[in-house]
């Protein structure tokens, strides 16, 4: 093998190996900075405003908020279109006292989704 192809083979091998190894990193693009209600907090019902603020701009139109009721049933919440670019909000109405979980899923500008869950308790007003 002449020196030319040899270098190319070795170089491409390195690129391929290193690219493979790069796969180790998890993808973390939007990080939740604060939420209302806060994690494991109690909030008076029956109407509960929900608000999540992230560290970066997010694609609200392609993000999702789902509420898991105490009985395990799911309801998809309508996300407001009037929030700042790093925030999503919605309002859950008519909630009875109990433990709920707010499931969030947001799409960041790089095309990756992140998701999480915020358990909170609704109490009598």
């Amino acid at each position, binding site marked *: 093998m002449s020196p030319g192809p040899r270098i190319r083979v*070795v170089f491409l091998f390195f690129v391929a190996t*290193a690219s493979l190894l790069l796969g*180790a*990193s*998890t993808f*973390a693009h939007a990080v939740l900075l604060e939420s209302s209600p806060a994690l494991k907090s109690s909030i008076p019902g029956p109407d509960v405003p929900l608000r999540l603020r992230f560290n970066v*701009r997010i694609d609200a139109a392609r993000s999702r908020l789902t509420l898991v009721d105490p009985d395990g049933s799911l309801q998809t919440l309508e996300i407001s279109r009037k929030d700042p670019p790093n925030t999503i909000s919605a309002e859950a109405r008519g909630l009875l006292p109990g433990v709920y979980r707010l499931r969030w899923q947001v799409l960041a500008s790089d*095309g990756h*989704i992140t998701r999480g869950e915020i358990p909170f308790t609704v109490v009598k007003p």
Partner: protein
Amino acid sequence: MARLLQIFGFLSVVLRGASLTFQSLTVGGVIFLLLVLRGSGRDFEHIKDSCLGWIRRFALALIAMQTSYLVANAFILMQSAEMGLADIIGANFVLAGALGLGACFAVVALSSAGRASSHRGFLLPVAAIIASSVLTSHAMARLEHRLPLVFVTALHQLATAAWLGGLPFLLIAVRRGSSPEFGRQLSARFSRLALMSVAVLASAGLILSFSYVGSLSAIYGTSYGAMVATKAILFGLLLFLGALNFQLVRHGETSFILASLKRFGEAEIGVGVTVILAAASLTSLPPAVDLPQDRVSGPEIYARMTPRPPRLSSPAKKDLPEEVYAAQKRAFEMGSLSTESFVPGQSGTRPNTPAEKAWSEYNHHWAGIIVLSVGFLALLAQTGKSSWARNWPLLFLGLSVFLFLRSDPEVWPLGPNSFWVTFADPEVLLHRVFAALVVALAVFEWRVQTGRVASANIRLVFPMLIAASGALLLTHSHSLGNVKEEVLAELSHIPLAILAVMAGWSRWLELRLPAENQTRAWLTRLWPVCISLIGILLLNYREM
């Protein structure tokens, strides 16, 4: 389906790294063509043809990577986020990807048109390639100073491409030039371009670091800060290699200057690709300024890093949390072993138990003993007085078996999770890939050291694998939520990674530099010293 999603998720990150590398090469090739290959004559025309061919190949590779990335990511969103194709098509990353693809096709078309056409036509598509990359960067997602950050990010990527992406083209040009003087002339031009790029790169890097890291304490207190510092150190290594090149071009003897230049260029490309990959992994970390809580403090680092005797006895397997491993097995079978996002105040990652930490420390300390022995024997073999010491690479076989058996006790053969979990959990996969690399390293280098192979190619396997291992460590287990333990682990891995990169490329240069180059003398000693230092650092690795 869930398992397929995990594979696609893993793949999309791999493709992102490859895209950034090919982006630098494509853009770097065009900049080289426009700024360095200025001139006419047979030599120039011949080299321009060759460079156009490589620009075309790198652009095609970028097309392949971008397309695969878009398809993989769209698939992930459709399956996991229940989004329709119409929804996905309007998403920012698709629009950015489409822009990049269009630009790449334009580069392919222009490079196929040959040298008859004006190369200035490349400017627009190259700008579009950079724009498509910046559109999905941290800068675009920021709330404050968005436009200046976008501009600085674009400059940063452009300077990276001009310097590191242009280097392979310099090597091609020097090799194909008909006279040493021609090669020297091109090298001098490229040196000026590289110097300018370095200045832009450093300035832009400083601005971005200031914006995304924000404080000195975030440099050592967060994963993002630590990775930025690593990039800066590797950048320093690149500058050192660049300075050696620069000296050669200015004052070296023409007889061996070009041969040396090519070899230093190869090492620069290698370290450069490592920096690009580290940069790509940074894009997957939240900026340090966004994570003010849970940072690691100076006293905590001091307490963790203070030298203590190594742990040479292992905790029993029954002390490990086997019920947790069994739960993991069930979760995997249900297809829910995916990475969850971190919610402040909530434990995003299960903290290791004391027995698991002791298990891991024991692993690292025995690995340290083996690696330190390797470094010591390699130095001893160089004295020529103990021929048996040349068998030092065989020690790596023991290391590989040890790592394979013990690095992930929850996975086969020691744990309840099957072998296939290896491919679903990136951390386990890394350990397994690493163990396989170590076997390859042992076999190839033992054959080299004991004179069983004369092939120059085989001799290069050892430095390549050592350098690749360094890159592996740099991209090792990034935490999503700045968990202190993850940051401390990362701080232990970073010096190991840098030493591995140094060991790999110094051995490479020792093998490749012409005999007349006096730098070889100290490079010969440098790589075993780096390996020994890796061993010493491993011996003091702590998780508690």
